[in-house]
């Protein structure tokens, strides 16, 4: 399949997953906030903002860290390229670019969600009760996942779709756990309310019921183990890395692809995660472990782009006369580009 199409399918899946996880993060914390009697808005919301990795753009847009500001920034602000709204918009632009590869149901799921988050109804929902808005985004994300599984061909595009979905989900689950590591352990301030934080974490991953089936009480060690290593839970890091690894194994490697192919990097990562124990992870330092995991996921993402998008140029078709010329950047759509406009007949 076309490299650009593969890249767009991959990023469409990533951005949809990203939007859904942001909605999960905000939903769980909105609820936690109401339950735990917190008075210090900043101490509560700052770690959440940090979790997303998009905190750098926040300062210039808002005078202080406050619940309604953070939610506005993460859900809707057009200047935050990873806000829920922009993620869905970018997912849809990529879906538009590969419209011919998608089933009507998958396109409808993306387009409907975009029309919803752009609507006046969505804006008033956010103003009145953001919970309803987050739930609708999560529901839209699940519909997208379901429509994809039920209607897409299990071809190459599907493997890129799977890779994007699970790479993003592994990254986001690890970030959600990170919000509960080190920095956040003193929040909420009242010790008796602290287990609520772990409970909120489980809820934000749709893990609450699965966890309760296997564990009688909410204990940090058990929560970390469940979210990292549980083999049956579809959002655990191990589960996601395994699915990503299986999808990458299905992809043909183009001739001349690099030694550190995404397949090889993913196999290594899966082996490490598969053999890890929760005690090793906690002993190594939760935050540091998560940092290293995210770096390796980033490496896999970069290797996918190099191997499947860039390396096509170097196949041995005889390089007699490559023409020197500037060309447009390759790959998926990640935001506004000035394109030249031509007249239509």
């Amino acid at each position, binding site marked *: 399949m*076309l490299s650009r199409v593969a890249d767009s399918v991959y990023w469409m899946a990533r951005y949809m997953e990203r939007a859904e996880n942001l909605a999960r993060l905000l939903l769980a914390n909105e609820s936690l906030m109401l339950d735990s009697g917190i008075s210090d808005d900043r101490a509560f919301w700052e770690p959440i903002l940090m979790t997303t990795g998009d905190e750098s753009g926040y300062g210039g847009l808002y005078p202080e860290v406050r619940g309604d500001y953070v939610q506005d920034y993460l859900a809707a602000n057009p200047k935050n390229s990873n806000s829920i709204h922009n993620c869905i918009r970018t997912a849809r632009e990529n879906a538009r*670019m590969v419209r011919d590869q998608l089933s009507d149901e998958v396109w409808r799921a993306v387009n409907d969600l975009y029309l919803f988050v752009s609507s006046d109804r969505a804006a008033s929902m956010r103003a009145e009760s953001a919970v309803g808005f987050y739930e609708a985004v999560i529901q839209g994300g699940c519909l997208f996942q379901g429509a994809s599984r039920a209607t897409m061909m299990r071809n190459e595009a599907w493997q890129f779709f799977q890779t994007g979905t699970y790479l993003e989900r592994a990254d986001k689950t690890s970030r959600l756990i990170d919000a509960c590591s080190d920095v956040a352990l003193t929040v909420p301030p009242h010790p008796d309310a602290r287990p609520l934080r772990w409970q909120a974490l489980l809820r934000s991953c749709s893990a609450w019921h699965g966890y309760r089936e296997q564990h009688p009480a909410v204990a940090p060690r058990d929560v970390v183990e469940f979210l990292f290593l549980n083999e049956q839970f579809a959002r655990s890091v191990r589960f996601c890395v395994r699915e990503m690894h299986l999808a990458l194994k299905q992809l043909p490697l183009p001739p001349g692809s690099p030694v550190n192919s995404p397949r090889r990097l993913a196999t290594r990562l899966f082996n490490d995660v598969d053999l890890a124990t929760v005690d090793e992870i906690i002993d190594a330092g939760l935050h540091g472990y998560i940092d290293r995991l995210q770096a390796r996921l980033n490496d896999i993402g970069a290797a996918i782009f190099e191997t499947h998008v860039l390396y096509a140029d170097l196949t041995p078709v005889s390089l007699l006369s490559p023409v020197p010329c500037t*060309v447009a950047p390759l790959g998926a759509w990640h935001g506004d580009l000035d*394109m030249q406009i031509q007249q239509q007949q």
Partner: protein
Amino acid sequence: MQTFQHYDTSGFFDEVFAPSCAVRPHYDTVVRSLDTLAAGDFARRQQSADAAFLKQGVTFTVYGDDKGTERIFPFDLMPRIIPRNEWEHIESGLVQRITALNLFLNDVYHGQQIMNDGVVPREIVESAAHYRPEFRGITVPHHIYIHVCGTDLVRDDSGAYFVLEDNGRCPSGASYVLENRQAMKRTFPHLLEQLPVRPVDGYGAMLRATLAHLAPPGVVDPAIVVLTPGVCNSAYFEHAYLARQMGVPIVEGRDLIVRDDRVFMRTTGGLVQVHVIYRRIDDDFLDPLVFRKDSLLGVPGLVRAYTVGNVALANSIGTGVADDKATYAYVPKMIRYYLDQEPILPNVPTYLGGEPDDRAYILEHLDSLVVKAVNESGGYGMLMGPSSTQGQRDEFKRRIVANPRNYIAQPVLSLSRHPTFVGDHFEGRHIDLRPYILYGDKIQVLPGGLTRVALKKGSLVVNSSQGGGSKDTWVLWDAA
């Protein structure tokens, strides 16, 4: 006749009602059916059709709006109907016209006999903005230049069909023909059951066969692609839609790469050769090595690959010389010259400043003609005779005498009207028709086409950017 009780047919040719206010026979079923609808029912169906277009992303992008606003192309549910005898006349006229235009292009880019014989003045060709003299002598597959043509037709106050212009570069709109029919099937299924309407579904297969015909010799199963400027282009929906109808990839310039004068697409498994490109990018942007150097939309080296015959382009390069405003006036002469036939579909009468008799006529009738400068478009350099002042007419008289070849004149057209749903009732609105003609191993005309409607009261402008909309066009199997 409740629905059309207050409908005003005066002043123009009305598609549905004869001057006596009787319903024309081929509209009988539709008018009777609309009459049985409860009040408000038509409006509800219209809303649901609009919502369906938005849901499916059948939209075009509005330029100059930083929000990247997408609009649906307004769609009017009352279909335009063409009976079989009228359609056969149109069809034969279009086949004749595309044949002559292709013979003309082949001649212009080779021996230039028609110019040597003085039938089409050399200056007209050489001054055309889209003439590509560097393509003279290059042989294109099967000597066909225009493979996909969209010809705009209008009807005058007697109901006769005229050609308003030919679009022989990258005509758009075919996807709306297909989508409009889908919308009608959803909204008025019973109406389509009652009438023998010719299907338009076959367009994707027709287009694919037309393109496959162009493949370089010896290629049995050619790789065909649709080349789009990208998702930011206003017609992107159409490009993707047609690719999907044909079952071929849609590519951007950056997906293609030229090696050894062959065109390849970049795939996840390496480079794959491409044989036929249905390009929806203008000549200027096609290849930065030949045309606009700053174009990022094109493919460096593509034109060379085309000229040596390793890849085919549809439409060919330089076809714009045939749909030029001044060349238009000579199409009837081309038909006589190449085919020794009388034109079946007439041009709108056009007077050429360069011909002495015509010039005299123009100068005598400035107050009743539209005068156009041939090298300008969009209403510039134009005189609307009936609404002009004596001063403006004097000024044009001076210009025409000074540079007669640069001017043409036409009578003011009164386009036919068609009942169109406005708010909660029907009013007459001006329409035109763009049928699609494909030229491959044979010439085929899609039965129907895009009926464009000027939604603004009294307006004669049907373009989507100017408040135009469209209607489904029903060509009947039966004569009326």
